[in-house]
């Protein structure tokens, strides 16, 4: 199943960020992991029912640690990671794109989309 582990989330985010080639990457692992960790409380704010049993997680290493999230809502976390990266002020970034991803994160959690 896709999006089971931390590594799969980072890979999925890099695809949308067009950051899959060469090392070092444009967006370091640590920044993507921070974004993934930050996505959890943001998701809980919108959907507390997703965390009745599942705890909030925090990630520091890009490895095979399992990310416990209902499969229906895993893509939302990827959108949040991409949105956070796109908020950076650099030549590759567009504010509209960042806003679009963060909106998609919210829409994925709260609507049928």
């Amino acid at each position, binding site marked *: 199943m896709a999006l089971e582990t931390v590594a799969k989330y980072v890979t999925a985010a890099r695809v949308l960020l067009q950051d899959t080639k060469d090392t070092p990457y444009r967006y370091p692992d640590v920044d993507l992991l921070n974004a993934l960790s930050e996505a959890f409380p943001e998701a809980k704010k919108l959907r507390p*029912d*997703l965390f*009745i*049993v599942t705890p909030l997680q925090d990630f520091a290493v890009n490895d095979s640690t399992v990310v416990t999230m*209902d499969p*229906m809502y895993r893509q939302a976390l990827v959108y949040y990671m991409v949105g956070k990266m796109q908020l950076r002020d650099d030549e590759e970034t567009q504010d509209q794109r960042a806003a679009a991803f963060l909106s998609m994160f919210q829409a994925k959690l*709260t*609507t*049928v989309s």
Partner: protein
Amino acid sequence: MAAVDITRLMNSARSRLTGATDDALQLELFNVMDDFFKGSNVWCEDIDFTVPGQDPANTVYFVTSDTPSLIDKLAWVFEVPPSSATSRGQQIGAAMQIPGEITLALQPSSDKVYRATLVLTVQDPVTRLGYVTFPAWVLAKYRDRILDGLLGKMYSQPSKPYTNTQLSVFHMRKFKIGIASARVEWTRNNTYRQQAWRFPSFAGGSQRGSSGWGGPV
């Protein structure tokens, strides 16, 4: 509870609640069953307790349910008859100010065994899979009404993919009607177009046999 029954209920709910998680469904199912049992009184249990003669007035007699449940109300207390040919002895005036603590209106002068009928509701812990526990026949008999309650409570949650105020009102209304009709069925002891009580055989005149069961007072 039969796994097939609860699976059918959950699948019926899942197909109507886009994006709902099982954890949220299980949480609301507990609340639905609590509402249902407190409103309908359909889950009852008879508990015998001994009352020694000469106990002082207002002596508290503690009763507990044998099943994983919470005592909600005291339905009635009858004296346990000495003969097995009679289902009940005389009715006893009793109260239960705190669930599980029975006091009598009049203390008997000799040792007696009384039978209290308690109305129960659900309690924690739930099963290992997270499901609330209650008698299987309740889900079999009231499946549609329980589903209405579950859908009504889920639709009423704010800011969810399945939030729907109109459907919430619709299903909660059906659920409340379902509770009321279950309560009526309970007072009639699930008999069709009859009162719950019968005249005992010695009173004569019954053309329906003489094996009256007793029933709600």
